[in-house]
């Protein structure tokens, strides 16, 4: 899919021509082996640590287990939710990943959000929102502004509006709760989306020190690509936060607790209260009383069981085990020696040329190929380890990709540099999954800001233009080309 720039009257088709059918194409999802979703060596190696194996497996199980409103040992779902298990959204190419597909390796399945009615996760009168399709991606919806029947107001919303409610669920007969007005929001152009972020290698990211990030930042002074990122900070201790599309979350535990409450409606020890949607909060009406305490056991629904007879993994809450599972996930395996996809085979030589070009043209100014972790008190593999994450964990101005959502220090056009490890086996790209091929994703790094928005041009425009200056293909020779860069990316 091509985009039209709005910079000047003569620039409209620049990127269209550069990216059009000159031969360079995304080779597609790398197949063969699933190269992510397994544990660190202490979990998945030849001499695993039994304690870590037990915690990893327990966290994995809880990550996958479907939650219910009530009536099981995994209660608390709703009254609003996007899906009923972490592993439903985070599943490509394995548990802990991103949005799945039934037509791309490893054929995990259709978008689970499109199946909630057929699978008895949501019930009538719930309907499938217009933007949810079986072919994906999995989407979370936000409204940048509150709106009325007449149109948008100037009051900022920005919060997540869950797709479904528990109304109609036999276990929630007291709850009458309508879905958000997604179509109305869309008619006012007041809806934006996010896809799930993969959490592979989370332990490495958590353990990258502040000084390491600052040193990389300082090293970019005077860079020849016009890049000038900054950091997002968490409000509690003023240290650099690093998880999420805008680097708004500090840790995996915070990420787990927030997602458990926001995406599944399950209160926990980090977010203890049932969450009304932003309209209900803003209008001071809250949730209907018939939709509260549906489990009957009170809050929080997920808790550390205070019971001295518990030990090991049973002594922890769900969000704790989620965080431990994600923290013990290995970084994705790259395939620099070559690989296959459904349509082609890529050689090591092409990957090597593409890797060099990736840095030379300026992509690495933000997508830092690697950062080194601090000493770890959790696992020796996380100590002074090289995290090949391809991200500086900074937030950058991204021009026309702006979603106008403010999070922490991140403004409406700023996004965290998305880690590219594992991108070879991902299907949807950019924060809202708008691109399903890497060439479009690269071109969209330099979309023109929306007219009148006040946002500046994307910081990535020079690197994108440098990439576009490469020949489209190597023509069967050894000239470094855009195709080589695409081939390299799919090796990650």
């Amino acid at each position, binding site marked *: 899919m091509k985009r039209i720039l709005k*910079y*000047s009257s*003569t620039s409209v088709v*620049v990127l269209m021509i550069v990216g059009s059918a000159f031969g360079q194409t995304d080779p597609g999802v790398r197949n063969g082996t699933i190269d992510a979703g397994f544990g660190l060596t202490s979990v998945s190696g030849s001499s695993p640590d039994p304690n870590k194996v037990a915690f990893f497996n327990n966290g994995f199980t809880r990550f996958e287990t479907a939650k219910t409103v009530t009536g099981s040992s995994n209660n608390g779902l709703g009254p609003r939710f996007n899906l009923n298990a972490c592993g439903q959204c985070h599943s490509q190419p394995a548990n802990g990943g991103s949005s799945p597909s039934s037509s791309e390796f490893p054929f995990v399945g259709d978008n689970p959000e499109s199946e909630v009615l057929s699978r008895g996760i949501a019930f009538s009168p719930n*309907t499938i929102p*217009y*933007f949810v399709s079986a072919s994906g991606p999995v989407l979370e919806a936000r409204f*940048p502004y*509150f*709106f009325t*029947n007449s149109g948008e*107001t*100037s*009051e900022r919303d920005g919060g997540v509006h869950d797709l479904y409610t528990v109304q109609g669920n036999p276990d929630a007969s007291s709850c009458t709760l309508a879905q958000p*007005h997604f*179509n109305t929001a869309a*008619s*006012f*152009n*007041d809806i934006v*989306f996010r896809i799930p972020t993969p959490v592979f290698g989370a332990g490495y990211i958590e353990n990258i020190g502040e000084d390491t990030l600052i040193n990389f930042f*300082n090293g970019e*002074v*005077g*860079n*020849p690509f*016009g890049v*000038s990122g*900054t950091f997002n*900070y968490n409000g509690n201790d*003023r240290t650099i936060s690093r998880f999420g599309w805008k680097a708004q979350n500090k840790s995996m535990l915070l990420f787990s607790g927030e997602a458990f409450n926001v995406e599944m409606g399950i209160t926990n020890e980090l977010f203890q209260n049932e969450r009304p949607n932003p309209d209900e909060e*803003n*209008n001071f*009406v809250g949730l209907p009383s018939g939709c509260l305490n549906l489990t009957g056991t009170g809050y929080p629904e997920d808790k550390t069981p205070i019971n001295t007879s518990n030990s090991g993994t049973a002594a922890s809450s769900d969000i704790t085990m989620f965080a431990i599972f994600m923290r013990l996930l290995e970084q994705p395996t790259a395939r620099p020696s070559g690989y296959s996809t459904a349509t082609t085979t890529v050689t090591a030589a092409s990957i090597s*040329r593409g890797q*060099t070009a*990736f*840095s*030379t*043209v300026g992509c*690495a100014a933000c997508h830092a190929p690697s950062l080194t972790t601090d000493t770890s008190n959790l696992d020796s593999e996380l100590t002074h380890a090289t995290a090949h994450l391809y991200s500086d964990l900074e937030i950058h101005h991204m021009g026309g990709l*702006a979603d*106008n959502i*403010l999070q922490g*220090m991140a*403004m*409406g*056009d700023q996004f965290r540099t998305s880690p590219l490890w594992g991108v070879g086996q991902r299907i949807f790209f950019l924060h*809202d999954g708008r691109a399903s091929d890497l060439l479009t994703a690269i071109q969209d790094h*330099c979309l023109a800001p*929306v007219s009148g928005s*006040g*946002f*500046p041009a994307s*910081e990535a*425009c*020079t690197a994108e*233009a440098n990439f576009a*200056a490469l020949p489209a293909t190597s023509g069967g020779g050894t000239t*470094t080309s855009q195709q080589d860069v695409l081939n390299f990316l799919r090796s990650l």
Partner: protein
Amino acid sequence: MKRLFRLLAFLAVSASLPARGQDAIQSSVPRSGDSPSATPLSKKIPERALLATGAWSSTSDSTTPLPEGGSVANGAYTNAYFGFSYKLPAGWMEKAAGSPPSATGSYALTLLTPADNYKGSGRGTILVTAQDMFFTPIPLANAVELLNYTKAHLQGDLKVELEPTVTMIAGQPFTSFAYWSPGTALYWHVLATEIRCHTVQFILMNRDPKTLESLVQEVNRLNWAAIPSETGAGRDDAPVCIKDYARGENVLERNDPVFPEHRFNPVPVRIIIDKEGKVRHIHFLTAFPDQAKTTTDALAQWRFKPYLRDGKPVEVETGIIFGPERHLAKPPVREATQSNSMTVASQR
């Protein structure tokens, strides 16, 4: 359209609040569109004003030129603050316009690329940037040091072809630096000069070394004389740039802003001090609106010792950082002299 940024007020809740309760919306909005069979509506992002809010660039007046205030018109990039006009090479166009600065004083002024109907052999880019040398997170005194720092941090397979070397271009001292990538066969030539405490860089990249050489030669056509000074009295009347002037005995009266809300961002500010020692212009590189207002009110009470040149008071331009400096390091105090290239532009 360009581009003297004004203070951007945070969106006030001036419009009516949404109707209380979901029922008011439910009863009047058709629900049929929520069925699975509804035609999917556009997924495009909102087109209403996505007004930039948060920490942003702003200024105390709309007439004093700003570093980011340049624009392309009539085939040339013109910047009144830096005082030059650069004619775009034939067949080239502006791909991305200038952006407000980062908190560390980094500006992307303009990005040029060949137009879609470009017939030449050399595809490439020309990026013009500026770095405010007062706000760099590490102490770098001048263009040579900045380019040496860039050289030390080159990525990929880049090889130096020309070490940073001072040369004269268009009558102005420039530092010239060239490197190339054997793997990608891309060539760079950087021309950096110091203007008003900034290092302005012309970063030219091309696939064709001959085209690159030709583009480098065209930088000789930089026009310094076309821009009047901001006071209208000629370029020699431009403020003298003195890094770190706002300290010690230079400050006769000082009232630091007390920000009402605790935040984590530094507030880098560039000011122009008039001949009487009062602040007459403030440029916030990045600040929240309430921080900008508080700082503006505080700076109105500052008094500086007038700076004398040849026994006569002249205006001074300098930088200050309020709030947490984070990882920013204070550079050593340096004063502009007649031989210092930072004042050359003001002599023209």
